[in-house]
């Protein structure tokens, strides 16, 4: 089993449903939609976690390619240097996926790597340079 994270880019209109349907049905993949940004008349963007046999993932990506949808694999990831964090919360203001959240009891920052879209908004919004990108 293997797990990858990809962004799909497609022209106007919502085609996310048929894509995910085929990936699940035809290639036996487990799909988790992390983020969907579908605005009419604009480019759509879908961020997916895809889990399955390596071979099936490859077939699935080939299918996406064949139907004319561009995709990009996640190669970078975000690192939270927790020891330097003061838990101010400024980064949570910009995180689109709720990967960064404030714990409502202790008021410390929590970071769920799986939900991260690597949009890098937090990197710039952290006043202490605590969030960084690893290549």
């Amino acid at each position, binding site marked *: 089993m293997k797990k990858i994270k990809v962004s799909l880019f497609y022209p106007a209109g919502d085609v996310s449903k048929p894509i995910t349907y085929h990936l699940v049905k035809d290639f036996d993949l487990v799909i988790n939609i992390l983020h969907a940004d579908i605005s009419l008349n604009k480019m759509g963007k879908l961020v997916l976690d895809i889990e399955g046999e390596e071979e099936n993932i490859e077939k699935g990506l080939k299918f996406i390619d064949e139907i004319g949808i561009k995709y990009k694999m996640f190669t970078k990831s975000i690192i939270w240097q927790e020891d330097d964090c*003061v*838990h*101010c*919360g*400024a980064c*949570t*203001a*910009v995180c689109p996926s709720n990967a960064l959240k*404030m714990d*409502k009891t*202790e*008021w*410390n920052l929590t970071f769920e790597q799986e939900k991260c879209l690597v949009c890098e*908004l937090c990197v*710039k*919004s952290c*006043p*202490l*340079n605590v969030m960084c990108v690893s290549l």
Partner: protein
Amino acid sequence: MAYKSFDEINEKIKSGKAVVVTADEIVDIVEEKGISKAAKEIDVVTTATFGPMCSSGMFINFGHSDPPIRMNKVWLNDVPAYAGIAAVDAYIGATELSETKGMEYGGAHVIEDLIAGKDIKLYAESYGTDCYPRKEISTYINKENINQAYMFNPRNAYQNYNAATNSSDRILYTYMGTLLPQYGNITYSTSGQLSPLLNDPTYRTIGIGTRVFIGGAQGYVAWEGTQHNPGQTRGENGVPVGSAGTLALIGDIKMMDKRFIRAAVYEKYGISMFVGIGIPIPILDEEMLKFTAVKDSEIFTNIYDYSVPNRARPVLKTVSYAELRSGNIELNGKSVSTAPMSSLKKAREIADILKQQIINGEFLLTQPVSAIPAANKMNRLDVRGVENEKD
């Protein structure tokens, strides 16, 4: 209940009998015991805040070199410091930018590095005088080889502050953080029910001479802060709705700890400094206890649209800190997520440390030598004369 004086409370602290709780803990205690019983039992309530405070800086005296120099231009790690005072005195402001690194490094970083014990490059120029012949100096300083270094912050511990949002179509980079377009988020900056001046809304116990915890050291309230505005609109509980009182604080840099002073860089805005402040409030009587029992649901602030570039920004909504802390606020029929800018976690840590120091007899209370003003007139800067004429 009878009035308890500062001296009586200090006697209890010295004999290890003082009952000290934080401004968070007092909320539950009052709910359980009621005001008058709690007022009898509790002697001190500790308050704290840990947020970005731009109006901060440090006075420093370098000592004399041989031959001596009357420094009239000073740079610390390439950050300009103000040297228009005596020969080897200077003041470096937290927001001053490095001349080589720009917004990456500034006055706040110099202060943080000095506290951390690092060497800092000092470069100074002079026109040279008969008594101070040297015209240039380049050396390294650190907290061991300088004379006095004290933080003097003209405006800290704001009593309440605005919340910010952005109605425009573009991202705004502000001192209230990154504001996403079309009411994409709301940011706020306070420790709310734990915040010093929100627990003493009429400045009965916090005044000139009050001993405070600042950056890990013991310091003092030196004066009212700049833009001190006690005349702000207030709720029935006396708590101001929006920015009101402020404090000018002073404290010994050499005694400070990097855990409580942190340089901050706000994208496309500039540099600020997180300052950790703790202030004890003596429970002189029931009124003081009632003040300290204030909770987030009873403290209100206004949400402003920061995309309006005028002084008179419209108030979009008045909300309580309990609502802001919930994570979402309804604005124009839409649920908007909220985010803090100041660290409640660190503020709680400071309130706890201060509580422990008082319990251990290491921190005594001081009665203000003079009160800070309870009324004022806020002036605004009007543009007069020929526009943009410098000389």
